[in-house]
């Protein structure tokens, strides 16, 4: 059986890598790329690697291999948390997120370089990304997100978020399905004056900058 399967989708090509030694798989991938050069050319590829644990240098070298054949790598799908974090480090999407989430996210976030993370961020975990950050999961107390653009949390936001560190600045927004960050900053502004009223605690909210201060309001999807 072939250890490499390739599928075309509206999102680009998906390459499934099966079991076997990594170096052999890379040789086989290289062979596919040269044999079907016209098929691949100029396209973008999402790599499915199953439970395989891959390091940042390994992902870098597969990215380089693809680039040599005029193909760009944009996402890694893996069940392995260490592969996911290696991919996230390289700014690759770590998952082909559920269609609905992508659609909603696309409405909030302008085009650009977003990092999608499909797990809960736990205390002590820090995400630094120059573009937008999308979390499909919770952001726990003690976790930290620093984003050049906006931050969307498809879960509970209870950690610290600093959005708009990049060019987007005060145009950045922060939204979450449950909104109670420990600290929230957009560009150089800090959200202040915790309201006593917590009646909206369990409702989706979006924070944005209005008249030079951070305002949170109901997030209507």
């Amino acid at each position: 059986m072939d250890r490499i399967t390739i599928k075309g989708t509206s999102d680009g090509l998906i390459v499934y890598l099966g079991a076997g030694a990594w170096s052999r798989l890379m040789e086989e991938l290289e062979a596919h790329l040269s044999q079907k050069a016209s098929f691949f050319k100029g396209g973008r590829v999402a790599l499915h690697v199953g439970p395989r644990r891959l390091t940042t240098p390994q992902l870098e070298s597969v990215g380089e291999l693809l680039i040599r054949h005029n193909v760009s790598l944009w996402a890694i799908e893996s069940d392995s948390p260490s592969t996911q974090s290696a991919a996230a480090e390289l700014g690759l999407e770590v998952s082909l997120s559920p269609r609905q989430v992508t659609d909603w996210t696309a409405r909030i976030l302008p085009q650009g370089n977003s990092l999608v993370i499909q797990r809960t961020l736990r205390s002590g975990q820090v995400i630094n990304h120059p573009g937008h950050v999308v979390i499909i999961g919770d952001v726990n107390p003690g976790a930290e997100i620093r984003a050049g653009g906006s931050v969307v949390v498809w879960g509970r936001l209870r950690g610290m978020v600093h959005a708009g560190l990049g060019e987007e600045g005060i145009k950045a927004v922060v939204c979450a399905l449950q909104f109670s960050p420990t600290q929230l900053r957009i560009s150089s502004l800090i959200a202040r004056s915790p309201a006593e009223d917590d009646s909206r605690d369990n409702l989706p909210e979006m924070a944005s900058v209005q008249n030079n201060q951070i305002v949170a309001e109901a997030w209507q999807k």
Partner: protein
Amino acid sequence: MAATVITITSGKGGVGKTTTTANLSVALAAQGKKVVAIDADIGLRNLDVVLGLENRIVYDLVDVVEGVCRLRQAMIKDKRVNELYLIPAAQSRDKTAVTPQDMIELTDQLRDEFDFILIDSPAGIEQGFKNAIAPADRVLIVTTPEMSAVRDADRIIGLIESEEKGPGDLIINRLRIDMVRRGDMLGTDDVIDVLAINLIGIVPDDEAIIVSTNRGRPVTLENHSQAGQAFKNIARRVMGENVPFIKLEEDDTFFKRLSRKLGIRN
């Protein structure tokens, strides 16, 4: 026989790792399992004290790793239950005397002969924690119902996930229902709400623990303490039995009561 290696860890110190390791070891042995308990808290050994085996220590974990003695010579048999052995930590060395690889090799030598190998982890996220976690097949995370302990547990769970040792199972120790009812302590639901991992036991705050620790007789050896019963239930859950939790009444969650909002002016 292929042993299951279970590491008991927490992040924060003083939340009950050693108490849990001692009591689960005794409870599993009382169920007829062959058990080794390893104290990986080098420099701060105290599993031996809690188990009441301190006066029988000749060799320790570091002696085994350095080849000063054979593994068997460092294993102290607990005579109160059938097959329970302790490998004590060294008192006068530091955590760098042992490596994660040493721990893997040592437990591999024991796997064929035992059902369970329990490892008592030191606090923190440094080398001692890495040593304790390296050979683990399963991890039990102990926390008390306090914000700072839960925060540290969350941190540890993140590290365990990145080591691909699964998220682990949670033990909530020193719960006081009266305080939870008054709104002065996090409840079980509040803790699970943050950590979102499987709960394997709730141990009440119980004076019997302190008395038993002083006497070197783990509470699971007695029949009447609440904490002892809780540890026996955890042991049975570890063995795969489905033991129901005693459902404790809790109303609003602590976060609802306490949470403060950011970002709204006027």
